[in-house]
């Protein structure tokens, strides 16, 4: 389905005389079906409901999930049946007031009364009741021979930001108040019964495309042209390929038609690569057929196909090499950022502090127990014990890591709260051990390995901790515990006084990798972390 870009202002211009006889719904459907197949029923419904010669219902609801061609069909039908209409995209309106103003404006523009804006409330409109009055006035101001019906399309009206809860039902009343107006609400979610608080509003449903329809749509355009691929092979193999892609990738994930098309376009060159490269088909045959290509390219549907489903901001630069080991590539940890030494240390200690039960704090993070033998034994004991406890969890995580379909799946979000004191005590350990090294103390126990490669060189760290913590917070590696739940609503993220508890916002593996860079082995300090 080609996405045709319409502008909001591309509204129907009123013509003085209708040209030619009106089209019947059937004719409208047949003329539009060539461009947008498999939507005959909806086109016929809309065409008959909106026809300029038949009275329309005051309100009409069009609903269906995204990428089912609602808006495109609607625009096409309105253009074809030649009824005056104005379209407002609700997603472009920031507030309810903005929406009402926009409705008024687009209506005025379509009616050619833009110059007379001062008459209609000076272009201002803050209430739906006001809108009703103003709309009625401008519709009445039309020339007498043009007093036909007027269609107002509100696209994605259920996604309106800052909408008062009465907005939808109030808008639905507009058509009842103004007889010549037909309000058309386009929803992308399935409406609940009587959501407009009025009975018997006609609904036109746009269901998702079925398998047959989707394949039909894709096949209605030709296979992508490739150099070195004979047309004959292409036309023979492509239909099978498309249906295989649908069955394996698109159907199970409820993908939309544009997704389907882009996956086909991306995978097709790889799929027929053996033919293009002139490899000899197996089994003594001298020609590739679909089943042989499929057997050869099983991997495509397993790994690359799944990665093709996930949209990336930066598209994969090396699409051709099918020989690379896909598992090894995707299982690699993501590239690490280059945080300065001190920030990394703070992040690591924050992670440690949040992952150690409070009762074990004294064993793991006490200045006095860091080097003594008994404390080490105790630590080792706790590491083992907790490991046994969390073995089931660990296995589950292992499975998640091995699963190639989720290459970037985060580990379990850490919800443990860290208090300032545990963070600090975790931190104090590291500084205590390193100061021992810096001072050249004779005993360098195993615990001093903690930061041995790059000893901490700053004497007064207390003043620096909060500054670096603020930076980490700006990067959202650490988020305040209080606003963690309310992160979506409040964006006052950089204010200081949101409490003194934080959550680590990144996965443990990631922190571990980062900590290795500064010579800290996280597992050594984590209860149940040592394998």
């Amino acid at each position: 389905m080609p996405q045709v870009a319409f502008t909001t202002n591309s509204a129907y211009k009123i013509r003085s005389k209708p040209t030619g006889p009106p089209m019947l719904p059937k004719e409208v459907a047949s003329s539009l079906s060539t461009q947008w197949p498999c939507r005959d029923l909806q086109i016929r419904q809309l065409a008959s409901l909106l026809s300029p010669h038949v009275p329309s219902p005051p309100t009409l609801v069009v609903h269906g999930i995204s990428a089912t061609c609602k808006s495109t069909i609607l625009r096409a039908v309105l253009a074809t049946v030649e009824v005056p209409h104005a379209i407002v995209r609700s997603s472009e309106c920031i507030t309810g007031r903005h929406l009402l103003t926009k409705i008024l404006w687009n209506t005025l523009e379509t009616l050619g009364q833009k110059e007379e804006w001062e008459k209609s409330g000076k272009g201002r409109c803050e209430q739906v009741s006001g809108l009703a009055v103003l709309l009625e006035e401008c519709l009445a101001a039309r020339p007498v021979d043009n007093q036909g019906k007027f269609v107002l399309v509100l696209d994605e009206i259920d996604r309106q930001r800052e909408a008062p809860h009465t907005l939808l039902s109030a808008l639905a009343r507009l058509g009842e108040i103004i007889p010549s107006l037909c309000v058309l609400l386009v929803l992308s979610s399935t409406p609940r019964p009587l959501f407009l608080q009025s009975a018997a509003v006609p609904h036109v449903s746009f269901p998702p495309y079925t398998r047959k329809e989707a394949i039909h749509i894709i096949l209605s355009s030709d296979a992508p042209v490739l150099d070195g691929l004979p047309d004959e092979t292409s036309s023979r193999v492509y239909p099978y390929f498309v249906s295989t892609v649908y069955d394996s990738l698109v159907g199970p994930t409820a993908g939309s038609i544009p997704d389907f098309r882009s996956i086909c376009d991306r995978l097709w060159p790889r799929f027929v690569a053996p033919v293009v490269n002139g490899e000899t088909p197996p089994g003594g045959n001298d020609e590739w057929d679909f089943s042989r290509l499929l057997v050869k390219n099983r991997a495509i549907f397993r790994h690359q196909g799944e990665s093709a489903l996930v949209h990336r901001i930066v598209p994969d630069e090396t699409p051709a090499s099918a020989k690379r080991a896909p598992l090894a590539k995707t299982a690699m940890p993501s590239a690490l950022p280059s945080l300065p030494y001190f920030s990394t240390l703070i992040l690591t200690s924050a992670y440690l502090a949040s992952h150690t039960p409070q009762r074990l704090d004294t064993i793991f993070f006490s200045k006095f127990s860091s080097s003594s033998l008994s404390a080490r034994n105790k630590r080792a004991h706790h590491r083992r014990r907790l490991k046994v406890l969390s073995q089931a969890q660990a296995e589950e995580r292992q499975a998640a890591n091995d699963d190639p379909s989720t290459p970037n799946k985060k580990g379990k979000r850490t919800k443990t709260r860290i208090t300032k004191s545990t963070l600090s005590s975790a931190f104090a350990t590291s500084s205590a051990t390193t100061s021992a090294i810096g001072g050249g103390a004779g005993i360098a126990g195993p615990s001093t390995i903690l930061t041995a490669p790059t000893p901490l060189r700053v004497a007064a760290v207390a003043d620096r901790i909060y500054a670096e913590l603020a930076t980490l917070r700006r990067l959202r590696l650490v988020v305040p515990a209080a606003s963690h739940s309310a992160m979506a609503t409040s964006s006052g993220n950089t204010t200081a006084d949101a409490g003194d508890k934080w959550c680590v916002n990144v996965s443990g593996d990631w922190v571990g990798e980062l900590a290795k860079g500064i010579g800290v082995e996280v597992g050594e300090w984590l209860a149940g972390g040592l394998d």
Partner: protein
Amino acid sequence: MDADGLNDALGLSNDKSQNLGAYIYQPSKHGKSAWERPSKRRKVSSTADRDEQLNRQRFVPLLNGDENTESVQLRHDTYRELWSKQENKIQDILEDVDAGVLTDVLSFVRDTSLQTCDGCIPTALVTVGSNVSSLSRLLSRLNGQLISTEEGSVVVLESGDAPNLKTTLKNIIRAAVTNTDGNDGYQKFLTDRAGPRLLGYDLDLLHDYVQRKGTKKLVLALRDSEAFDPGLLTDLLSLFKSWLDRIPFTVLLGISTSVELFEGRLPRSCVALLQGKHFEVQEAGNCVDRIYETLQTDPDTNLWLGRNVTSTLFENTSDYFQSPEAFSRMVKYAYMSHFFANPLAVLLAKPDSTVIAQNKLCEAVRNLPSFRMFCEDLVEEGPTKQVRDMLEDDEYLIQETPKYLEANQQRMRNMFQAVRVVHVCLQYTQSTKKANVSDLSVRALSGELSESPIVEEMVAAAKTLDSDKLDELLVRLGAIINNPEANAIQEDLRTLLETCSESGPLRSGYSINSTVTKTTVVQQRIRLSKGQADLSEQAVEYTNIVDRLVALLQVHLTESLINPQDLFLHEAFLFDLRNPLKETFAPRPRFAIERALATPFDYLLSSSDVTMAKVSAKQPATSILYQLYLDSGALVNVHDLWQAFYGVFETEEADGCDDRVVMSLFYGALSELKAFGVIKNSRKKTDHLAKSAWMGL
């Protein structure tokens, strides 16, 4: 030679203000003072005069105030001149560093459009790492380029500008319009429109603007993308997406962590709106290294940063988020403190002898530790006449000092050239770990480089180089060492290579390939003996060349890698005080407050002579309470605290102290501690206080 010695020598510690126990801060009163007219009515010309006057008196006379104004002025001017030169160099480096990314981003912005991105918003992801400031440099240059070619402009948005959708849109529109038309242009743009006044956040405004200007690319740069609220970002991007067919947006996201992390935090639906490319800005570390190298090793440098300063500078860069600009500010501060506080800095201005004679500068020079060392050396060498002259004859000293200064500065320059030589050689010989100029400089500045294992290994490795690599090395060395011998070696090598160009690279007699291990069995024991393999004639000749080069290198390095602290007058051209720099750029307010509370007599003058080991009633009440608080656990019973507090006063003033007065002191102290944020009411027990700060943590 430590900092204290230098302080003594320069008479810095005589300054009375340093011995004061406490400072009283008196904010200057603005506005309503009886004798001054309100600042509003002040004439412009008079302020200009005052500024000029201030400018002249920015530096204070040193040497106990005996320094004359001329020399103060000279110090100031020299500083200005020196720093402006260095600043230009730094700017050049910064621009050069950004140039690569800038062209990449610019071409991306020009080439991509809605169509090339499959209907997604074209997005440039720029990872900046810890080099945060580089993005704003990049953006301002990008903006300049786009405006100059009238293709469009850049709108920079920070997370602070984006508290909610409405304000964000308002800010974007305003920034886009003011960027080209100025603030008045924005006001005009809002008012001079046909039709009704639109709401400030209506993107129709931006659309209108884009149409008027004929903008082809409107780059919207989010400088700190991570700090944006994800929900807001999603809203904003979906809005852009729906306007994309009318307003040619390109989004540029600055990312400090990594692309994967950033992408993972956004909702899928938001990621699906974006498509683009990833750019990487060079790390701050590289940039800083280059700046440092240029500042120190440039042949016309007059003032150098010492070992302590260097290590402080690099510590800051590697440990914290620090931009190259911040680095250059620290260097500037170092230069400034040198010229501000060191009267000898006037020597760098190459003043007339009259200027030196008028001051007590001769006395200052004679008090230098390096002068003493210098004299001792002279005495050991024999002639005492010169030493006597220098000690007694001002004229002679004035005459000699600039000569020595010049000579020793030249030796410093040579030393840094040697550092560069070592650095270049290391690039050829060292395969695993790359030592950078800053590390080498720190070693050289402490006089350890010539004996360090790095240099020894380097020389050993240089012997085994084959002729191709050696040729490259010589070319690069030739640019640094201006020595006829080096040129001769290079020419000899060339002629040798020309004679045997077909036989591939030559190897010297020191490389592994040309030593042979012989195995002989003597009395049932195996004896290994190494011997030279037979070398071809050319190889022998090549070995000779290598020998000559190594000898040259060794002579050159031992000659020039001296300990700068041994140089006479190094106090004048080497700034090596760690303290002002460290305290200024890493202040420790918390430490200071804790110390003041715990041991108040460190700051306040004590009336009694008793050493204050413990709590006493003579201390301020807040401090007494704080010390008691330090002794307590995480939860403190208020009554216990009050008892202890009262006890302090009771013991000292045995004859009945007024407990109402003590009580009021106690409440005052308690509320002050609360204001500091060290205690708060506990929710667990009503009559308890919770401790919320620990000393030193």
